């Protein structure tokens, strides 16, 4: 039971970590919470599902979903957020809530509310280690998450574009002065964050199904993880995501499964009040 | 308030005040006193920590070290609203008005501590409440006439001319019935005439027994208006004294005037 919950926790945690990256990256460049990030997660999964219905090879369908997610994030930014650069942050947040309602219901309008299962080549197979059985798809999720994290770290630290994104997170205006196109950096950030978010949705699709409101709680938990890790702190978000998944699984297993989702919310409240800079810390812009 | 206000006694005393932001020392071990009924000016180059000093005095930010005493009371750890209620009022470097309020309403906010607060009396419109309210109205009328805004009292404050917006801010600050008025670059961006008018307004305010602490860039204004000047640079006190002394202080000339001239 302990090991079972630990594995479940790590799998969930991987998903939360992937989601948290999107929140944290957008925060870095724009200092606001892209509330509609959960809908990118949903959108990516739906596009993959749709591509599979068209008999696309499974890997291509997955890739298509990731690209669609990236495009969705890019679109959100271009159509709405970019036109609101001078608006109060709160207005941006409300706009994001609006976008998320629109996307959820557009998905429901197109694909219906009935949950569908995304195919996975691994789902029906289990590894047997000693007395334990571990599903292959779970292993796939964990491996892919680690891979994404490594690639992201390399991108941020080893490429020019990554460095520009990092510079933008220090001070977007200064970046602009230095001749880097700030809008381009913001677009890239949205696209990358959203691609990772969409990947999370696609990975979850075979296990917890694909349906229009799937992004709501995943988004909340990804956000919780990003706050836990310290807003703007990418490695922090990854570790916090894993931690959150594990805590949640144990709480569900040993306390009550009905309050599973409440665990993350309580942690979120607690962190916001007690340590708003997150466990791993990063200075949060104060309003004076 | 009946506090013994001797002339020449310190109304505000700042001791060893320090504040740093992410390693940069905005205010560093600063000490000085503002005497009763003075017009005390703070000067210094841009980024010298003048506005930070005001924010520290009014409690908007808390110092890392040191303390602020107002009328012999330690106000360092008090909230800004408590400090305002003690009798310290201020204006802001970038005018901060309430965009949806008329001039009258804006100034009314300044009387909050005398009229506002309790909801229940307002609900039942008790006699004391109504008395207080009409008192406040009278005082606002007085203040608005004093600063010369009575005619525009029903216009939106944010839509007035720049000079008049400054006046609204000053009227609002005066409505809190302060002992000490902090003015953060009140004449910035104004023409000669407007500056002159404001200067005479400050003198009148001062004559009513209100001590003024003013940040200014306009040297002419500083020298002709104030009777005490503190010069700060890099958050530290560089010199202090009456205008005649500061005018010829070598360190000031070097650090401040020299740079000001090259910039000009």
């Amino acid at each position: 039971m302990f090991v079972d919950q630990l594995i479940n926790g790590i799998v969930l945690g991987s998903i939360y970590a992937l989601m948290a990256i999107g929140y944290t990256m957008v925060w870095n460049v724009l200092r606001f919470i892209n509330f509609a990030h959960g809908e990118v997660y949903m959108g990516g999964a739906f596009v993959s599902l749709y591509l599979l219905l068209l008999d696309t090879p499974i890997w291509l369908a997955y890739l298509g979903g990731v690209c669609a997610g990236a495009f969705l994030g890019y679109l959100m930014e271009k159509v709405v957020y970019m036109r609101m650069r001078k608006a109060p942050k709160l207005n941006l947040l409300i706009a994001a809530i609006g976008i998320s309602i629109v996307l959820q219901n557009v998905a429901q309008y197109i694909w219906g509310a009935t949950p569908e299962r995304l195919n996975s080549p691994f789902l029906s197979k289990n590894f047997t280690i000693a007395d334990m059985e571990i599903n292959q798809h779970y292993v796939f999720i964990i491996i892919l998450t680690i891979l994404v994290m490594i690639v992201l770290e390399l991108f941020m630290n080893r490429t020019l574009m990554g460095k520009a994104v990092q510079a933008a997170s220090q001070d977007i205006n200064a970046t602009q002065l230095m001749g880097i196109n700030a809008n381009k950096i913001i677009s890239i950030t949205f696209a990358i964050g959203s691609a990772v978010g969409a990947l999370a949705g696609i990975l979850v699709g075979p296990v917890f199904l694909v349906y229009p409101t799937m992004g709501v709680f995943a988004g909340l938990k990804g956000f919780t993880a990003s706050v836990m890790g310290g807003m703007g702190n990418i490695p922090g978000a990854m570790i916090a995501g894993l931690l959150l998944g594990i805590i949640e699984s144990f709480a569900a297993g040993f306390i009550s499964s009905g309050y599973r989702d409440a665990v993350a919310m309580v942690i979120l409240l607690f962190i916001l009040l007690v340590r708003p800079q997150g466990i791993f810390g990063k200075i949060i812009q104060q309003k004076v | 308030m009946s506090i013994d206000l001797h002339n020449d006694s310190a109304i505000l005393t700042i001791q060893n005040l320090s504040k740093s932001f992410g390693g940069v020392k905005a205010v560093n071990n600063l000490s000085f006193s503002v005497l009763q009924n003075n017009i005390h000016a703070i000067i210094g180059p841009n980024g010298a920590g003048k506005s930070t000093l005001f924010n520290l005095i009014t409690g908007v930010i808390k110092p890392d070290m040191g303390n602020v005493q107002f009328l012999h009371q330690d106000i360092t750890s008090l909230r800004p609203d408590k400090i305002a209620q003690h009798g310290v009022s201020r204006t802001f470097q970038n005018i901060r008005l309430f965009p949806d309020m008329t001039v009258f309403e804006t100034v009314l906010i300044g009387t909050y501590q005398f009229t506002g607060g309790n909801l229940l009396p307002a609900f039942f419109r008790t006699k004391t409440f109504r008395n207080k309210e009409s008192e406040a109205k009278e005082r606002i009328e007085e203040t608005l006439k004093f600063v010369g805004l009575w005619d525009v009292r029903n216009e939106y404050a944010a839509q007035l001319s720049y000079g008049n917006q400054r006046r609204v801010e000053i009227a609002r600050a005066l409505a809190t019935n302060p002992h000490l008025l902090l003015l953060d670059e009140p004449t910035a961006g104004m023409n000669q005439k407007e500056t002159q008018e404001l200067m005479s307004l400050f003198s009148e305010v001062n004559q009513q027994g209100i001590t003024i602490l003013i940040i200014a860039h306009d040297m002419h204004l500083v020298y002709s208006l104030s009777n005490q000047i503190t010069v700060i640079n890099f958050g530290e006190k560089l010199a202090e004294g009456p205008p005649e002394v500061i005018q010829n202080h070598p360190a000031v000339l070097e650090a401040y005037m020299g740079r000001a001239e090259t910039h000009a």
Partner: protein
Amino acid sequence: MHSKKLVVKKMVMFLVLAFLLVGCSAKNSSTGSSNSASGDTLRVGLQAPMTGDNAQYGQDMKNGVELAFKKINSEGGINGKKLELIVGDDKATPSEAVAVVNKMINNDRVKAIIGGYNSSPTLASQEVSGPAKVLHLNMGASPDLSKTKNPYLFRVILTGSVYVPAVMNYMAKEKNVKKIAAIFENTDYGITMYDAAKQSTKDLGVDFITAEKYNPGDKNFSAQLSKIKTLKPDAVMVVGLYNEVALIEQQAKQAGLNVQFFSPDDSMYSEQLIKLGGDAVENHIFASMIDLNANTPQMKEFKALAEKNNVPAQANTAIAFDAAMAIAKALEKGGGNADKDRDALANIDISGITGPIKFDKNGDRSNTPMIMQVQNGTFKVIKDSE
């Protein structure tokens, strides 16, 4: 400051938006707000989940009722009046059910209501339809629906107190299970079905070793399943709808819990179960009141009709078809008078796709269920009804 141009631009945009909203509202309300039914139509309401996790059921039921109405209307309607269907989405929740039944009764003036599918919404909404004297023929499984003392409430499916003993008997006698773990939906349906199952264990010599709950719409059952796994049961009873049954069995397989799964009733009898569950739902056993492969004339007629109208012939489609036929018969006999309609439905005796339709004094049918199993991705009868 706003320039004049900007204000004009904003006004125009605002007007466009306003028209959009009003237009959409008007278009939709025009169908429903013309009050009492006009002379030549009779309105019947369908209370069912049309959106959300249970939307598939609502769609199936809608298809069934529409088929029946089409058939009746093409044969001349009842007493010269055409039947018209008013669909109300109860979202499988009690408060929406009350709201939507309210609307159907007061605004659309329906003569009868078919549905709801879920027990809790039906229990809540019958408190509105009862005092309004509107026939309410529901498809909830909870035994509590027999205890409402609402004379206008009838049930087209079998009650849980018939389903449960049948399947428990089978599991104990044929499958020789002794230790059963239960996982059920935390609603009237799940709780009362579990209670009924627990009562039947006394005579059968089986035991419930644990009872885990979940909320409708849950997707992650790993906590409950790993608890169950450590107790090593002979079988697991799942009380739930197809989404949950499919996910639970899928996740059980992933966790290495490979035992016999069964359900007390046919709430998961839907193609969607196979689609979502795949291999994981293979061998699932449940009690059912209908077999879509039955070789009866009624079933053949229904399937032909479904095929002609391009509608998937699902279990709930067939049951809703029967419900619609029964309601139509009652309305024909009662002639639109509330009490006469009720008496007509109470004394009805017709043979439908789901067998003879007769109601006892509680408004329940007394047919016996058969036992079915998922085999090679299809639903097979493994024990006929007695």
